[in-house]
């Protein structure tokens, strides 16, 4: 087994294991920590895929930003006081069944999928490549995403601020 495969399986285990734990833990704090493990694993996969920029972005944005947000809210609303309550809602078998059916169908379709022939990456650094693509071909979404973030900021401030 070569080194890359080893890393792949290691990161996959982290990603999927963390994800499974995240959705099954009773405590929200534990779930958040499992989620962090999972996201780290995904970051590792990005590294294996030569996406260094995303690897950094994943760690800084997700683990630094989003998870912190989650933990902050969990502390604020003291979720763990509700630990004794039911963790799954009543119709969970229905949700699980939908997931399983979709999973089987998707797996079958994927197993028969044929991708177009592979191409090689241009021989420039990943960050330069991403930057070029982003600013040349994807200028519009780059501009629109500023609106998105503005809405998110205004919205979350509006909703979370104390009553006037």
């Amino acid at each position, binding site marked *: 087994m070569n080194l890359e495969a080893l890393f792949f399986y290691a990161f*996959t285990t982290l*990603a*999927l294991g963390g994800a499974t734990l*995240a*959705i099954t833990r009773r405590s*929200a704090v534990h*779930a958040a920590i499992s*989620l962090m493990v*999972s996201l780290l694993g*995904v970051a590792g*996969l990005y590294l294996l895929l*030569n996406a260094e*920029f*995303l690897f950094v972005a994943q760690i800084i*944005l*997700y683990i630094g*930003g*989003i998870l912190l*947000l*989650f933990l902050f*809210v*969990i502390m604020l*609303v003291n979720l763990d*006081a*509700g630990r004794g*309550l*039911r*963790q*799954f*809602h*009543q*119709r969970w078998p*229905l*949700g*699980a069944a*939908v*997931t399983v059916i*979709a999973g089987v169908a*998707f797996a079958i379709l*994927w197993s028969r999928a044929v*991708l*177009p022939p*592979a*191409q*090689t990456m*241009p021989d420039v650094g*990943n960050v330069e*490549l*991403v930057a070029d*693509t*982003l600013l040349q071909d*994807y200028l519009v979404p780059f501009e629109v*995403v500023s609106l*998105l*973030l503005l*809405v998110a900021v205004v919205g*979350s401030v*509006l*909703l*979370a601020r104390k009553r006037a």
Partner: protein
Amino acid sequence: MHYVAVSLAMLLIGTAGLLTRRNIVIILMSIELILNAVNINLVAFSRHHGNAAGQVFAIFVIAVAVAEAAVGLGILLALFRNRETVQVDEVDLLKW
């Protein structure tokens, strides 16, 4: 394409979490898992096709994830304020 399988597994775990859990914070985390599944796909295809479009897409997906999490948690806080003594777990929203 092993990465695609990882992505699918991630998607399903996220979906399962979203459809079965009651805790809203964990449901929001499930959405993050789903978006990560999308990103694994995008980055894997990006390498397969030899262009960076997928990675750029993934950046935007991360931005969207940040925005959704921020607004989602903002709404959660507003809700919590309105029912201070009540546990968030009891907000049995996803009944259908």
